[in-house]
């Protein structure tokens, strides 16, 4: 009655890289995506339902962190053979859309440290270029949850990983969390960083000629934050606003 409702839109490439993990594709999850894909969804609903997906993604991402056996005594005096969390973590969000995932992250990981990276496309070279980064000083000792809601071409995500690895974090200690990815982007990204785990909520059909994800959900940051900031499509103008 309930679970037979198989998802209809998930594209699962036969050759999904082994480092890619998706959420269980339930009807419930698809309903969440249907809400945030709908262009008529209000900002309030977009916030609420994208937060739900982000929490699920973070919960799934944390499952890739190590745990150690731990025995505790319960209030009833019984002994329980459990596990303890091992290893410090931090989040790194790619501005500005990645910031939208921070509240969801903090709901699951209380008072977690969050670094920021701003990457924009350089209009002259058409390459992703680092404009700004502020990372926790001890990031080399931490597991990093890299946050960016959409993986389209993978350009900015790969640049971000490059920056984080320059700060001494090994590839296998980075977990990239996104809501929607394109098969092309996944292929490129995992080809470059095969040991880096990617947690994605949904793999869409592909990219159109403008490198937008199809069917996608539009500009995540724009729908999440104030749209007037993004009215101008001129990248240099956008860069100016970010740097301010």
């Amino acid at each position, binding site marked *: 009655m309930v679970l037979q409702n198989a998802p209809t839109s998930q594209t699962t490439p036969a050759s999904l890289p082994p480092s890619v993990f998706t959420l269980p594709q339930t009807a419930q999850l*698809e309903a969440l995506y249907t809400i945030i*894909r709908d262009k008529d969804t209000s900002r309030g609903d977009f916030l609420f339902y994208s937060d739900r997906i982000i929490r699920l993604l973070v919960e799934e991402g944390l499952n890739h962190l190590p745990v150690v056996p731990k025995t505790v005594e319960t209030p009833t005096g019984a002994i329980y053979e459990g596990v303890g969390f091992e290893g410090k973590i931090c989040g790194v969000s790619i501005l500005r859309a990645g910031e939208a995932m921070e509240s969801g992250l903090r709901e699951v990981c209380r008072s977690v440290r969050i670094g920021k990276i701003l990457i924009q496309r350089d209009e002259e070279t058409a390459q992703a270029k680092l404009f700004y980064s502020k990372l926790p000083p001890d990031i080399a000792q931490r597991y990093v949850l890299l946050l960016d809601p959409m993986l389209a071409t993978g350009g900015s995500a790969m640049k971000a990983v490059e920056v984080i690895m320059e700060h001494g974090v090994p590839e296998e200690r980075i977990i990239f969390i996104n809501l929607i990815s394109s098969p092309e982007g996944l292929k490129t990204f995992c080809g470059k960083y095969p040991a880096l785990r990617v947690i994605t909520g949904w793999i869409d059909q592909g990219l159109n000629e403008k490198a937008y994800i199809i*069917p996608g959900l539009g500009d995540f940051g724009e729908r999440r934050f104030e749209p007037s900031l993004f009215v101008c499509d001129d990248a240099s103008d956008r860069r100016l606003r970010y740097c301010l």
Partner: protein
Amino acid sequence: MVCIIHFTVEIIVLTQHDRYGEDGLRICDAFVNNQGVIHRWFRQWEARQIVQALGSIPSVVILSQVGITSVQIWKKVMTDVQDSFYRRHTPEQVLLAHANRIDFDHPDAIDMPLFAACLADLKSCKQTNIPIYSFSEHQRLEETQYLYGAAVIITEGILALHDPHLRALYDLKIFVQCDSDLMLARRIRRDVKERGRTVDGVLDQYLRYVKPSYDNFVLPTARHADIIVPGSDNSMATASRMSTPILPPPEPWQNLIVIPETPQLKGILTKLRDRTTSRADFIFFTDRLATFLVEKAMEHLPHKLRSVVTPIDVEYTGQELDGHLCGVSILRSGGPLEKGLRRVVHNMPIGSLLIQSEAKTGEPLLLHLALPVCIRERHRAEGTWVFLLDAQIGTAASAFMAIRILLDHGVRQDHIIFVTFLVAREGGIVVLRKAFPDVKIVCSAVDNYLTERWLECIDVEGEGVDSETAGRKVWAVEPGMGHIGDRYYL
């Protein structure tokens, strides 16, 4: 009033716990007593006498055809003076009523089918919505009064014995006689004092309507009564118990859904089980687990296809939730799950049931209920999905009662999803499974033991334990998390 006293002694056996057997089916209806009494003051007085004498019975409803409605829940008597079941009037009839030209003592003035329907609902332990009649407007009001949970129902009204459908519902019928002179004297006093009428008007109404009505409709119904007061024969009708066979449970029980144990889940459970975990950590991890549990529970709701257009103008066929959803939390321990529910469902109506164990017997008692409107109205309850929240299922006494209450309101068994942190494998879950095989239970872990303990050394059961009764035996889930409500709130 010998008969009244005798009568109370007889019905005291029908306490609330006796209403449902281990199979979750009703073993007896609510007890319906009727009084076709002549004088209102006397009816009221007598009804109150009965209520006072009943004392320990959790809930008594006095349902009035044309009199008072009082509801007693745990010795607190709420009284609304409302004449309930007069028919709705046309504008012309309202004018006539204000001019004392309507015969309110004629059987046609009373909405007998509606009265019978409300009474039948209450008798079969379901909720009902009683109409309210305004004497100042001479009209039935749009609002209704919600009633649920009567163990004993007393109806009263001069025409209460007139309608055969009503008579068929009563377990015991009492007709109380009174001297005519006394009735008229009290009527004049009441109407002049309380309703601002003139003596002439009262007498006019009495001769025109009241007396003929009494002679034609009221007095003849005395022959239907089991007891006439003052009477000679105090024979009693008693409610009989029906036994229902317990069906063997289907194997295996797929409706007990334990969410998959991931490293994070096990880590969260370790934090929550650890007695040295700080309160701040306990609250944080409880909220986190509750959110995740509710997300998992949501997967068991039905969905249907829905097409949308994305901001880049591509059509997308996805799904959407198909059904109306509300939450009901069993207080106090269901509370720690509410934040999770609020994080997952936007604008969720959440009702509550306060169920506490009775100190002497350990039986659950319903102290208070505040259900969302979508459950209070039966036609909506039938289509509603309910997330029932409680921290753990140990003896399952309160879970059992809460499910029963939802079913009484017309919620479908397969529309109830019980969301809980812990279930004791050998505990009351076995009984729940037998009684309500279609209810789904979503939990984060199943513990192996349910052990008997002393309350003073250990707290137990999310199911409401009275702190004044320290030193008695209670049941604890092992290894468990301790008393989740206390650790979350105190």
